[in-house]
């Protein structure tokens, strides 16, 4: 098994075999999480700090739970309320935390590349929990695990990603991951929400949702941010729902056993029909949340192992 990364900053630097390694380990943690006693000591004695410069309930809770189940000491810092308001720079904040010797740093930041910048300045392993419009690697990994468990494989699938691709780090990480694993990717959305030059990413782009969904195995819906709903990028919520909202009729164009995914939180009646989202035969949205904890446990476990190897091998972190 191979996983040589020091940090998990994105899907881009990962090798396909590293993705497989991580997902295989995550499968084991899914089993652990379904037991009565959900404890492991993989991270015992290690300190995990969650630094969220942007609001998040779900991702932060998932990382916190993942760390606690592996026995780490977990601390949450809500950075919006703290020193950043007092004018401290990102790097100063990083250096300050670094001096407290954390082992794992989980960071979310509203600016693309900010987590990379921070990772250059600290000695611990850094996990990107979402940076601007750049990457959200654990989301892509949990999506991959969900697909692999539902479809029995993670290659040669036809996968549609629908909605606000332009502003979505989830879409970028998923395009990268699913592409590396040799799937066929179709992007569906209005041209105002499609990033420039996206056709060079080895994807097919569709403006018509029915055409785009034709015979796909997986339908991934993206969240449409509230601030983008009125006039700026799309004319209105209702026109968007009419053209790009997933309902049973549009889903009819996909394969009969196609699964429906959404990274959450959902806007019911905007990008997805509420009944469809709750349909346990089609929707795997709850599984995604479950896989999220397992994938984050696996990611932190693997990074911690590399951390320990370095400590023993080179004394870098002593």
């Amino acid at each position, binding site marked *: 098994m191979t996983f040589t990364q020091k940090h998990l900053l994105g899907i881009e630097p990962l090798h396909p075999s590293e993705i497989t390694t991580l997902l295989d380990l995550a499968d084991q943690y899914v089993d652990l999480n379904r037991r009565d006693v959900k404890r492991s000591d993989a991270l015992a004695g290690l300190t995990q700090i969650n630094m969220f410069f942007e609001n998040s309930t779900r991702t932060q809770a998932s990382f916190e739970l993942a760390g606690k189940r592996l026995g780490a000491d977990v601390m949450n810092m809500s950075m919006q309320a703290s020193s950043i308001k007092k004018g401290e720079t990102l*790097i100063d904040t990083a250096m300050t935390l670094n001096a407290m010797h954390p082992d794992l740093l989980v960071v979310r930041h509203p600016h693309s590349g900010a987590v990379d*910048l921070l990772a250059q300045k600290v000695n611990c392993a850094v996990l990107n929990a979402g940076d601007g*419009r*750049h*990457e959200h690697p654990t989301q892509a990994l949990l999506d991959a695990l969900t697909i692999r468990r539902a479809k029995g494989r993670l290659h040669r699938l036809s996968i549609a990603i629908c909605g606000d691709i332009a502003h979505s780090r989830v879409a970028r990480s998923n395009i990268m991951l699913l592409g590396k694993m040799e799937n066929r990717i179709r992007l569906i959305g209005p041209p105002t929400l499609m*990033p420039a030059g996206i056709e060079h990413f080895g994807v097919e782009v569709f403006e018509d949702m029915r055409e785009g969904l034709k015979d796909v195995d997986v339908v991934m819906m993206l969240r449409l941010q509230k601030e983008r709903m009125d006039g700026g990028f799309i004319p209105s919520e209702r026109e968007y729902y009419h053209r790009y909202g997933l309902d049973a009729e549009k889903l009819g164009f996909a394969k009969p056993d196609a699964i429906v995914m959404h990274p959450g939180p959902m806007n019911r009646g905007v990008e997805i029909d509420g009944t469809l989202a709750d349909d346990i035969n089609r929707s795997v949205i709850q599984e995604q949340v479950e896989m999220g904890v397992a994938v984050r446990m696996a990611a932190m476990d693997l990074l911690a192992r590399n951390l320990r190897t370095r400590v023993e091998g080179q004394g870098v972190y002593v």
Partner: protein
Amino acid sequence: MTPTLITNVHLIDPQAGSVTHGALLIENGHIAAVGAEIAVPDGAHVIDGGGKHLAPGIVDIGVKVCEPGERHKESFKSAGLAAAAGGVTTIVTRPDTAPAIDSPETLEFVTRRANEAAPVRVVPMAALTKGRDGREMTEIGFLMDAGAVAFTDCDRVISDTKVFSRALTYARSLGALVIAHPQEPILSKGAAVTSGKFASLRGLPAVSPMAERMGLDRDIAIIEMTGAKYHADQITTARALPALERAKANGLDITAGTSIHHLTLNELDVADYRTFFKIKPPLRSEEDRMAVVEALRHGLIDTISSMHTPQDEESKRLPYEEAASGAVGLETFLPAALRLFHSGDLTLPQLFRAMALNPAKRLGLPQGRLSPGAPADLVLFDANAPFVLDRFKLHSKSKNTPFDGQRMQGKVQATFVGGKQIFGDA
């Protein structure tokens, strides 16, 4: 002053478009003779050029010296030393300081400080509107009397076309040169990179290269309306070039420049969010870069500037979107430009036409020429000498160069201003 004879050099004459082996005689601060053989006058100081290149010193339009306001980033002294080390003999300073150079009083401060501190010639520009706010025009007449050679709001676009057209009309009546930044300001608002595959991959806010063409189109219409004398500070995209070509063919008084960074780097150099590559306008695609090099070769683009913009470490060590724009360029100007020579894209006379002759001509300065009677502002350089750039060895107070750690070719050996050697040990 004793005459100085520089022998055994390859003379780059941008007017003649030639490189010839010979000698050059300096008397009383001016070039007295240029030729294959020049007899040594009595008591002359003779410099053996060692077969290297001698060219007119670079005239750099658009240098930011951070006085007044941010002297910790760059002073006239440090900028002057950097210029001398880079073969730049005239720096044409930008008014985007804090406060802006928008009155005869502030301009006087600049002139006084510059003469005290800088070893090279400093020629100031002034703002076109007060505070560079795009609302009221500055005292263009008084500012010209005080020595302003051109009027510009730098990277701020005057979006109110009424204000801009009146300022241009007024400037035209005085024969003043206006330098503008062609860019559609609303489309480019908040952008950190050029839109396209790379911007999408990195998830950075981007602007279409078309915003430059839109800005230029508007400006051309206003020049046609007002008859003003206009220079576009930086043309960096392929799609703006046909508009520029038409405007020139139609006889408008328009010239255009580009920056050395847009000629030698492209958007991919930003790589993993390297903020030293964040400049304004943002770096473009390789296709755009090649088109701009081509336009320079044909003379469609007239000038090259360093767009020297010092920024301290704090303003650059931030997430890409938040980081300040700009790069220092005075000292790396010549070696960077020589990349285009070594790659076979441009000849040395073509380079010096754009770096020295054309900027001087456009500003009405006597520099930039290698002919008798011209001021002896010269640069002696070895076009082939290789080195690896170490940013901490730059003379600028700010070290924000995109060329840190890069292999460069071409070293300045001596710089002369008014016949006086101000750099090097030749």
